[in-house]
């Protein structure tokens, strides 16, 4: 919403600068986005260089066909020679002159210049040169009544500040200059001029409007009011300069006087109007009805529009002639030949307008207002202002009567405003007298009643002020919200804080961070192609993809079921930027669809990706590349920090290296996967350049944390009786997995064997071909006594026997 300050000042002038006005409006709820400067700059006395002139003579330039040499009078005996290129310059005209030194809106500074040998002492201006209009074909010819030599700014606003304001959706009344003036009046207490929609024009002639046009509203719910006035003897032509200047300042292109009037009324009062050429309305009859599914029409912007059954049409006897509240049709457009005008001021259903304009992708000045739900009263105010302008500007005569097909207007809302409630909600006492004064400035009717107030809501606030809380907001915002004291709630039940699960999640992230990983955050929506790119098996839960029906692009149409694609994209982004070491993790939701209609399973996952260098080369060590064992160590560290029991089982999803992948089990539940990425998948995600595919894991952090939460940490006495450490070396067939050996040892060790750690692996001459030796460190401990060498020797014997029988292993000396 744009409000030119000069226009605003016509209705309320608080004597403040544009910036100050903008600030006051911002604080009270109409946010200033920016101030645009239009027209002639006002700095350094620049307006003084723009004067009214009278063309005394205009002669053909001796050396240029298209130029005229004019003698222009500027006050009394001050006449100047001005060379002018406009075809319409002629003796006797009153014109707008810029003198040497003037700065034009585009920043050019005028000087005295020689044009084909003749010195020009200024410039006669066209509309476009000073941004008063869009006519650049010739110079402006002003009314003769203007006095030569006067500053032009006295007659027309040459330059202005335009406030660009953001009006909230509940305030249709602020979508116009007068509405903003009313707000300014309320916050500054400066006087407000009378409502420009209050005074009407006189009607003339015998033919009642109702006899000249028939109006039917088939769906009154979608069109609570459809009012029409008829104007005859209309002379369509350019608007007067002041009107053009108003529209141009706000960024509206002047069209002709009739269309300009409709726009002017909309900009001043907030009610969009539509002018029909009555002689191009078949019937003549207008009917308001819902569109048929697929019905078509060509709108004023020459676009073919296809409508559905929710849209509302205004039709004449030949069919649709406009989309109600959004845009008129091309068929009944006002033209230079138009003589009779049917002026429509209607009220539409806001939600319906919003829906139709959204579907059509057609948001107009009109729909932006109607979608906020205008009040039917406003239509008649707009008719009155339009009538006055039609008579004054286009010389029209208004037929008697108003065609008004309207639902009964509900009575004004009355709301009780309790002083104690005001204080209770705001936290500060506000005297009823102050509330009364504020509400009165906003045009509410206020009556005292038993120390409280009985408030009547003006029609233009009918939509958003319905309850006591709404009135309290009005009082608070006009009075100044920052005047409220700053207190803290008095509390009951005041213990807050993070839950154990939330703390554990932080622990998990902190642990990964501490291990040198950096956290990434990727979008939750990914390309649906990813399912195929990851080679997911049909039964894989990760194929349960929820699809966005209106994605930003096909690349972002699927809700992720795994964090891996995001991590791979992030890796690719950094690899493409010559990053050598990739150590990253993400914590975020994945979504497993339960169908498009119901909420999916949302799971909180943590994913880790390592690639490139795990540890860089240093001056005293070689680089280490991240492989399965690096991520396994990282995963073990994470799960052990959270205190859950875990193990890996062979196998893993199809996007991993088949020989280097496992499922992760926590407390016997499958919570994720770990492994090295399948080389083909790495290649498909643009990571083929890496010397080795990334090593990754992804687990359901929610589930892991839930398991961790169930764990209570109890004291275990590891201090009273010391542990005995023994190392053993077990020789087995190369094919026997380390875990099998460790499990056999554990099974044989009994309760005194407290831990088994594999700390070395040897293949070679000493054990012979096809064999390997695993070194295990065993920790023995009893909670009841100090173990003796004999105790340990006995256990060791059991272990030796078990290894021999179960894994074919022998102990190496």
């Amino acid at each position, binding site marked *: 919403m744009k409000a030119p300050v000069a226009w605003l000042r016509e209705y309320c002038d608080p004597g403040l600068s544009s910036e100050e006005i903008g*600030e006051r409006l911002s*604080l*009270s*709820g109409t*946010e200033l986005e920016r101030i645009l400067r239009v027209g002639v700059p006002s700095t350094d006395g620049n307006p003084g260089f723009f004067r009214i002139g009278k063309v005394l003579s205009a002669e053909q330039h001796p050396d240029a066909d298209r130029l005229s040499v004019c003698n222009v009078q500027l006050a009394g005996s001050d006449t100047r020679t001005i060379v002018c290129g406009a075809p319409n310059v002629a003796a006797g005209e009153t014109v707008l002159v810029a003198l040497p030194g003037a700065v034009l809106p585009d920043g050019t500074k005028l000087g005295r210049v020689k044009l084909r040998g003749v010195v020009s002492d200024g410039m006669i201006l066209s509309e476009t040169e000073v941004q008063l209009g869009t006519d650049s074909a010739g110079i402006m010819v002003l009314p003769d009544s203007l006095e030569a030599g006067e500053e032009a700014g006295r007659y027309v606003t040459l330059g202005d500040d335009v406030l660009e304001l953001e009006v909230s*959706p*509940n*305030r249709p009344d602020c979508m116009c200059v007068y509405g903003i003036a009313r707000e300014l009046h309320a916050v500054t207490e400066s006087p407000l001029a009378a409502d420009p929609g209050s005074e009407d024009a006189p009607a003339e002639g015998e033919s009642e409007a109702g006899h000249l046009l028939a109006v039917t509203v088939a769906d009154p719910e979608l069109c609570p009011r459809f009012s029409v006035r008829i104007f005859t003897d209309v002379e369509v032509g350019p608007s007067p300069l002041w009107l053009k200047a108003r529209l141009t300042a706000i960024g509206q292109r002047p069209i002709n006087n009739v269309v300009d009037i409709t726009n002017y009324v909309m900009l001043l009062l907030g009610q969009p109007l539509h002018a029909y050429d009555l002689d191009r309305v078949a019937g003549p009859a207008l009917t308001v009805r819902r569109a048929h599914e697929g019905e078509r029409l060509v709108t004023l912007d020459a676009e073919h529009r296809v409508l559905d059954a929710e849209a509302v049409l205004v039709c004449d006897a030949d069919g649709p002639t406009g989309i109600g509240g959004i845009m008129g049709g091309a068929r009944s457009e006002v033209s230079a030949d138009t003589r009779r005008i049917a002026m429509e001021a209607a009220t539409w259903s*806001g*939600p*319906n307008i919003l*829906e139709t304009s959204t579907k059509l992708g057609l948001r107009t000045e009109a729909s932006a207002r109607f*979608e906020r739900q205008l009040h039917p009263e406003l239509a008649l105010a707009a008719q009155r202002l339009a009538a006055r302008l039609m008579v004054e500007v286009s010389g029209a005569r208004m037929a008697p009567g108003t065609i008004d097909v309207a639902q009964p207007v509900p009575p004004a809302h009355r709301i009780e405003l309790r002083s104690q409630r005001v204080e*209770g*909600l705001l*936290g500060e006492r506000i005297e009823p007298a102050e509330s009364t004064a504020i509400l009165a400035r906003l045009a509410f009717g206020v009556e005292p009643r038993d120390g409280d107030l009985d408030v009547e809501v003006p029609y233009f606030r009918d939509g958003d002020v319905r*309850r006591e*809380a709404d009135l*309290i*907001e009005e009082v*608070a915002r006009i009075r100044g*919200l920052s005047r*409220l*004291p*700053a*207190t*803290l*709630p*008095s509390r009951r039940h*005041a213990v*807050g804080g*993070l839950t154990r699960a*939330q703390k554990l999640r932080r622990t998990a992230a*902190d642990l*990964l961070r501490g291990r*040198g*990983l*950096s*956290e990434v*955050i*990727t*979008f*939750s929506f990914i390309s649906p192609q990813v399912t195929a790119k990851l080679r997911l098996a049909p039964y894989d839960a990760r194929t349960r993809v*929820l*699809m*966005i029906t*209106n*994605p*930003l692009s096909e690349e972002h149409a699927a809700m992720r079921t795994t964090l891996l694609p995001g991590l791979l994209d992030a890796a690719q*982004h*950094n690899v493409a*930027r010559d990053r050598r070491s990739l*150590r*990253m993790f993400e*914590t975020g*939701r994945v*979504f497993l669809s339960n169908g*498009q209609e119901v*909420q999916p399973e949302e799971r909180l996952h943590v994913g880790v990706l390592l690639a490139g260098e795990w540890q860089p080369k*240093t001056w005293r060590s070689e680089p280490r590349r991240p492989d399965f064992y690096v991520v396994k160590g990282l995963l073990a560290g994470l799960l052990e920090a959270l205190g859950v029991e875990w193990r890996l089982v062979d196998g893993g999803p199809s996007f991993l290296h088949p020989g280097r992948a496992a499922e992760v089990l926590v407390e016997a539940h499958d919570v994720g996967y770990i492994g090295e990425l399948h080389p083909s998948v790495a290649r498909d995600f643009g990571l083929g350049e890496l010397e080795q595919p990334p090593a990754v894991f992804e687990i359901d952090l929610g589930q892991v944390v839930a398991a961790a939460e169930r764990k209570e940490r109890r004291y275990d006495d590891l201090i009273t009786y010391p542990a005995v450490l023994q190392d053993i070396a077990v020789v087995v067939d190369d094919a026997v997995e380390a875990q099998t050996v460790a499990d056999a040892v554990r099974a044989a060790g009994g309760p005194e064997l407290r831990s088994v750690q594999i700390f070395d692996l040897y293949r070679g001459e000493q054990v012979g071909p096809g064999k390997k030796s695993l070194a295990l460190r065993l920790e023995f401990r009893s909670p009841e006594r100090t173990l003796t060498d004999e105790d340990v020797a006995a256990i060791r014997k059991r272990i030796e026997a078990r290894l021999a029988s179960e894994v074919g292993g022998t102990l190496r000396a």
Partner: protein
Amino acid sequence: MAESPNIEPGQALERLDRLAEEAERVLREAGSPEEIEQLRVRFLGRKSELTQILRSLPSLPPDQRAEVGKRGNEVRQTLEGLIAGHGDTVGARDLEERLRRERIDLTLPGDPFDTGHLHVLTQTRREIEDVFTGMGYRVVEGPEVETDYYNFTSLNIPPGHPARREHDTFYFSDQLLLRTHTSPMQTRSMEAQPPPIFIVIPGVVYRRDSDATHTPMFTQVEGLAVDEDITLADLHGTLLEFARATFGPRQKVRLRAGYFPFTEPSVEVDVSCFACKASGRQADGSLCSLCKGSGWIEIMGAGMVDPNVFEFVRDHGYDPERVQGFAFGMGVERIAMLKHGIPDLRLFFENDLRFLEQF
């Protein structure tokens, strides 16, 4: 030494004195621990003269035994002390020498123990959570895929409401969508818990918008405080505490009137600009680029919970005539950008390590 064990008594005392003198002299010249050890053996060893003298005591006349024995022990103690003391000196000198040889180039880099980085949004989100948990709030989270009812209708945004236009929404079906704000958890939390309730709701939200100032996914923290007597002034105070904890102890907060369908009155919240100390001007007199000269920076929207919102949870203990409270919502990206001078929203989601590793 092939001396006779029979020693003349007078001679013995003389020899002991000489021994002491000699030991002192040669020890002074000894330069290494090895030499000291040799001298120890020479003067105090089994075969040393001192040992021999002491061993020969029984052969001495009884009247002399005591004197020679006493003197001999004195000399032994002296020698032991001398050797130990001198040994320490020489040992220390020797250690010093060795440490001098072990000097390394201290300027070579240490082993890399790289610390990773939490995403700046996570850090900011945690800071916000911590401020409010410190004030007694709990942290709750809700589903990102929401129903139309919780995202809009229960927040006083019925179908056809113009505010829906401002929420460019991703849909899965008519009734299922990606939440456009964290506010749906207001309703869900009130359904789950009667008043008083003090919660903050962090989480990612989605809007169908992508340009220099919008990303389709971003992060919000919502706050909700409901009890019987919570006022707009309490909101003012709470946000002042937040602003000071987040941006600095001297911050000011300004409330402007605003509009949200689920609060009434609604406010926009500004903090005093910390780039220009609220003056609106940079040091060189030009307009402050952060606050655009206004001296204030918008950080969030807030307001008193609209009675219509309570109507949706009335049966859960929220009678709008009896309870009241405030709600606020802020963008974590915006707070992070302000705190760290991050110029472009899109940086948060590009995941360029050169960006992530700065925080």
